[in-house]
């Protein structure tokens, strides 16, 4: 049964964000709560999360954060590891189904009520969309749950082994195309499976990925990727990626002398 989380609606969320932008991480630690008078549960299917569960979730997130240097600045790599561990933790532990995880105000509750200190530590002085319920693809917690949901493999053994395939910026490219290819977990997982073996010919990962995603989006208009067997899908994604890398690589080589002349 899905677990329902409190929803912190726009006005209340914006008010907290404006206040919290002025506070230090230490001050924010004293502001965390397990409930908020303005947060409401919607009457959809599922049971309400208990205060004990919220308390445990906060404890577990804090433990991961401390390993990554919280409340200090920490190193960049530690934050990358933090994101990966949190993605798995949220996906395994929250008991959310995708329909409920698409409801943005639940993520505002986590960011601004349950975990304000960790949220503003992960993104110091964040723009609103990192903590408000405005854009899941940018949200400090929501984007991590979705990253895990799109990349988790169906079997239980090493279920989250694909999580670290793409860096944050690269995965954002996939997530931003959620309505086209990003909604197909089969395709996203396959892309993650084959990505490490693609010879990018010296072209930046992000450039190749953007081009591959464009090509897959175009193909998706006439190809039913979901209907393909593992081997067929693997071959098609590999072919598209190889074609894209070769083209961009050749273009980069061709552009070299012209740049030199200029």
């Amino acid at each position, binding site marked *: 049964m899905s677990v329902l989380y409190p*929803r912190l609606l726009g*006005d209340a969320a914006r008010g907290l964000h404006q206040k919290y932008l002025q506070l230090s991480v230490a001050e924010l630690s004293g502001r965390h709560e397990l409930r908020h008078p303005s947060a409401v549960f919607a009457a959809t299917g599922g049971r309400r999360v208990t205060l004990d569960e919220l308390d445990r979730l906060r404890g577990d997130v804090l433990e991961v954060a401390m390993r990554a240097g919280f409340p200090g600045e920490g190193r960049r790599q530690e934050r990358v590891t933090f994101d990966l561990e949190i993605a798995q933790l949220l996906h395994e532990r929250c008991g959310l189904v995708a329909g409920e995880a698409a409801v943005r105000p639940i993520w505002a509750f986590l960011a601004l009520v349950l975990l304000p200190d960790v949220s503003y530590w992960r993104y110091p002085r964040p723009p609103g969309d990192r903590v408000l319920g405005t854009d899941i693809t940018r949200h400090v917690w929501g984007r991590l749950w979705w990253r895990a949901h799109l990349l988790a493999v169906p079997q239980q053994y090493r279920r989250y082994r694909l999580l670290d395939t793409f860096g944050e910026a690269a995965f954002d490219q996939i997530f931003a195309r959620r309505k086209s290819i990003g909604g197909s977990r089969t395709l996203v997982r396959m892309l993650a499976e084959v990505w490490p073996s693609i010879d990018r010919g010296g072209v930046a990962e992000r450039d190749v990925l953007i081009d591959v995603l464009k090509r897959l989006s175009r193909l998706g208009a*006439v190809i039913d*990727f979901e209907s393909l067997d593992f081997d067929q899908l693997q071959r098609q994604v590999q072919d598209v990626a190889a074609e894209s890398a070769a083209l961009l690589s050749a273009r980069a080589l061709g552009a070299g002398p012209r740049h030199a002349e200029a």
Partner: protein
Amino acid sequence: MTRVYPYLRPPADVVTTGPWSRLTPDGSELLPDTLLDWDYSTTLSLHRPVTVDGLRLRQLSGLAEDAEVDLSVQWYSTSSLLRGQAWRLTLPVDDAFEAPVDFRLPGDDLGGTLELVTNVVLRAPGSGRSQAAARRAGSVLWSDRQRVLLEGDNTLFPIATADFHDLPYPTGAGWYLHIDEDLEGAALGSILLLVNERHEVVMRAVEAAASPTEADRRVLSTLRADVLRSLVERALTDEDLTEETDHPVGSLGALLTTVVRNAFPAFSMEALRRERQTAPALFSSRLQETAQLLVGP
């Protein structure tokens, strides 16, 4: 918008489909446009009769007889934006081949509007095909789409009760309809009807909605009319919202456009905007009429 396919496709009549049905504890029933009793824990048992002319299909697609072709069903959810395969069957080289579609679809990844896409797809092109024939595995040769709104009004109007003393709304109000700003966002999660726990009359009516008294009925009618008014006003005060704008299925923008169209089928949005500005009292009466305020049972 018509999609242009870079390969030969057969005429639509190579596949004959019957209606989608769902299995319920009481037997089988035609799949309605809206499933009022659906929630995330529901597993849908869906089926539909399909007959395919497997030989004619291959011939008219420019494919060889040894081409491998599948019939498959894909699902897509407008709230989660996820998609996946629900069912698949290999089609033999026989005309009038009966391929009864039959599968179970768990509710975990669904919500909003569910799209069921029945596809005939190429699995392997075989030998001796026409130059114009599809060659890439997965090429869609034939397609059919059906939409069903899950959860009905519950999706569009999740209701929550709260003490307005704790919320930034007038403490003595009966309700507040929260509507998000992002027109592209999923309607689910963008709208929430908050009922004030302090308002005894409204709370009593909402709690008794399944078997209301005459007094409750009047309260609920007023509430429904006000919800409609709030949605229509939201639509008309947003200049970005027009009949021509193509908002994604299941989005707030699509919902608001539909609400205005259904409420005022004879008026354009522009005409409604004009009337609301120049003759607000008349516009208000028109809203009362379309909402059937205090009319009937």
